[in-house]
């Protein structure tokens, strides 16, 4: 069963964000992982690049499809999970742990208020199926 940790914030595009001091760590949710299936390639920006909230910052590919990755907040990419280059399956194995994608230094803290908590996100998921 897909789980949605309480300590994370979520987007409608199925990314999660974890606030860690002055950066936020970003990944995709268990729901997104289920929809994608086996992840085979993750295309991400380089550290130092700027990303815009709710705009595409990369792509994630599974055996079957390509999906766009959307930034939960605007800011500068600080760190990129380079382990995913050789082991993209980490996203399937632990989307909230070793399968994280990037960390971003937010340029506008207020954007964090626009994200959903776990309960809200689960409610939102309920409106998608069927």
């Amino acid at each position: 069963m897909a789980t949605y940790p309480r300590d994370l914030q979520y987007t409608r595009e199925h990314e999660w964000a974890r606030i860690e001091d002055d950066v936020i760590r970003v990944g995709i949710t268990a729901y997104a992982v289920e929809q994608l299936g086996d992840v085979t390639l993750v295309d991400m920006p380089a550290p130092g690049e700027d990303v815009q909230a709710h705009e595409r910052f990369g792509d994630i590919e599974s055996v079957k499809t390509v999906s766009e990755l959307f930034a939960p907040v605007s800011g500068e990419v600080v760190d990129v999970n380079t382990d995913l280059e050789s082991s993209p399956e980490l996203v399937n194995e632990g989307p909230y742990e070793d399968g994280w994608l990037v960390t971003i230094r937010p340029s506008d803290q207020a954007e964090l208020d626009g994200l959903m908590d776990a309960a809200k996100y689960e409610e939102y998921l309920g409106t998608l199926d069927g």
Partner: protein
Amino acid sequence: MSEALRETSLTDEHRALGARLVPFAGWRMPVQYEGIKKEHEAVRTRAGLFDVSHMGEILVEGPQAVAAVDRLVTNDVSKLTTGKALYTACCNEQGHILDDLIVYRLEDEKVLVVCNASNRDKIVGHFAQNLSLGTPWNDVSDAWALLALQGPHALATMKDLGAPPSLLELPYFSVTRASLGGVDLWAARTGYTGEDGFEFFCASEDAVALWRALIEAGTCHGLQPVGLGARDTLRLEARLMLYGNDITEETHPLEAGLGWVVKLDAGDFIGRDALRAIKGAGLGRKLVGFEMTGRGIARHGYPIVANGEPVGEVTSGSPGPTVGRNIGLGYVPLALAKVGTTLGIEIRGKVVDAMVVRTPFYKR
């Protein structure tokens, strides 16, 4: 807008097994159960069970059955002896591909034609229009189910189900009447995975019994149910054509590398004159296999470029789980079709290197 999706007799089995069901050619079909990679590997190393009941089946009967079907397809059905099967293209007058088919001679005067689900209405219409008058034929797609058991442990699974030696020793591309797991069926040594295996045609109402019997007998041999997702990666590694991608009404069998199923000097068939003219004029392009040498995955519809110019399109592309590389097929001008040629694949605006390679990508 959207018409109701059709379901096979096994849809509840798929649901119970946790399959993800998706729309495919008007049907609700399992795209995966446990995951595409795991299912792919199960078929390559053990055994996989597929529900492909969405495929279309046409039965042609009577003393003229063989001759009537022969006139509709590019391969030579007149040489097909009872109990044998062949792969063929079915073309229009322009020599373009309406569908690819497997033709089984079930009995002396009974021929089974299996077509793609997406082409069923078109092929049934084509047969209705072009089969010689007085040839009895019947679209049995709804009455029949089709299950495919594929992989190196297919035989062991059938042995455990009490399959007779005549079935276990059935030669490749042959078909026979048999009983398996208490179900009467036509068993054929054919498939769409590049592995050894069987396809079983049975009455729709017997499909659940056969499916359960095969799962039960196969589980100790590592058998898994396999969805359309892995079916696609398996067939691509084996360079088996996917209609709608690699072959369409815009392509002809000669450029698709299907010249081996075009028998210009056998009896007449629809499209023969056109294909003879195309052959005489020489091919302009060819379907080639390539593997990505740069980082990226080619997908259906991506442009193929050379020296900054678009030269063709990817018809199929995905990771190849067994070959361990990202692979694909696409049409390119003859000058770029040689093995070792570098091609560019345009992936979301970025050109990534690929190289023409020998196919099939995987051979057992």
